[in-house]
């Protein structure tokens, strides 16, 4: 069935003409909570931990690096190209592989390593969701494809809710091939280190 034929049958059913513009769609009311950073953090902690995630709040990049090393406990890990990981020195930790440019090499490495380290696009306090935007620096399999996922992010990423995310720049979703909102996973052990 050609698209044109379907669209024409819809126009006929609706009594519309080709190229006829619709009236302005009703505007959804975006409700952005006016929470302080501390309130956001507490709400995020409650929701994130309810989904089974573990939240670790640290005060410096050095502390974040130390905590990642403790979580790895000598095990190997794959790290994404998120700038915050380099800034914390996580990429220099023993056993951390990063800088992948070849899909096959990354796929093979993901078959043998159990821990992935990445950052995130934002965090939603109200729902405890982690927002991921998959890019060349943030491949899917490092964040979502391994049994243990360690996220390192600045607390600046903490938004109040989905409405705030959609209100910031709704067209930004088109800048990536996929955006995902994750509220915990039965498949993964998730640790979030918030700086």
């Amino acid at each position, binding site marked *: *069935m*050609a*698209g044109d*034929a*379907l*669209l024409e*049958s*819809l*126009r*006929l*059913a*609706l009594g*519309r003409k080709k190229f*006829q*513009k*619709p*009236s302005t*769609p*009703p*505007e*959804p*009311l*975006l*409700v952005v909570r006016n929470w302080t950073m501390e309130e956001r953090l507490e709400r995020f902690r409650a929701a994130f931990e309810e*989904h089974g995630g573990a939240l670790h709040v640290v005060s410096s990049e050095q502390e974040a690096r130390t905590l990642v090393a403790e979580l790895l406990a000598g095990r190997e890990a794959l790290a994404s190209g998120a700038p915050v990981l380099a800034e914390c020195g996580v990429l220099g930790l023993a056993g951390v592989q990063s800088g*992948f*440019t*070849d*899909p096959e090499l*990354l*796929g093979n490495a*993901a078959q043998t390593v159990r821990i992935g380290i990445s950052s995130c696009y934002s965090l939603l306090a109200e729902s405890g969701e982690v927002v991921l935007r*998959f*890019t*060349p620096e943030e*491949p*899917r*399999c490092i964040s*979502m*494809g391994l049994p243990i996922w360690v996220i390192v992010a600045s607390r600046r990423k903490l938004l109040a809710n*989905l*409405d705030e995310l*959609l*209100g910031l720049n*709704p*067209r930004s*979703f*088109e800048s*990536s*091939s*996929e*955006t*995902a*909102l*994750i*509220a*915990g*996973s039965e*498949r993964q052990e998730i640790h979030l280190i918030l700086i």
Partner: protein
Amino acid sequence: MTKPTEIRSHVLANLDHYLAELDKQLTAQGGTVVYLRGADEVADYLELLTREREIPVPGGAESLRRHAERLEPGVEAYLRGESPADPESLELADGALRISAAAFLIADAGAICLTGEHPGGTGPKIQVVVAGIEKVLPRMRDLAVFLPLLPSDTTRFLTGPRRAGELDGPEELCLILVDGGRSELLASPERRDLLRCVRCGACLPGRVGGGGVDCPVGIDTEGLPLRLREEAPLEVGGWKFRLWGYVMRKPRLYEFAGQMLRAFWREEWGLPAPPAKSFRQAWREGKK
């Protein structure tokens, strides 16, 4: 505050415009958009795709057909008030092809919204998404109203296949838009309301027609399906059920039919064999 009902009504009244916008945007981002009439055409399309790409299908074409029917139950499912639960995705040949159902489509972003699907691994090589044409919403920000209706641990927005430099994700993304009788529903102002449904399940467990629950998109879940059934009673099973109904009303004929069935039963029919004695026969013998 804008109610979901207002946005859904606006979309349906201008559906041709939003589908054209979605198609244009998703195609510009590298996706493919295909328009099909119903589940049969979806099954044919999937069969052709798997044959061309040499993707093995356990259970063959019949299994693809069953999956296509689950993904695209068609408009009759609305009229029957069937469960709005999302069907599970089908993944073939270790991620060579994944076939999913969309929760929403977003016209301005050319985005496909999937709920309840963990992206895991490196993603499929080919991602096919099947969606009824009514699933479209005008803008991403409309999701602030609609996503809370479909709570899920994972919500994904696909805006095309993997882009230059990306190390994983689908190499091809195909959106199949299915009419499935919806364009006929649109032509009827009274029936059109059914297409506002976003399958949130608020009317469950009572199901449409029996719940008496406030529908978030303003569908008269009690009255409308009943009115539609009165207007056009659904054919349940056709002549076989009418014959069964006739036989059930004639006790002697029913018993005779049972005797004939036991006498001429064939294993090759592949159905559970009837008991050696009917309930009536066993009852009579027990009383002696």
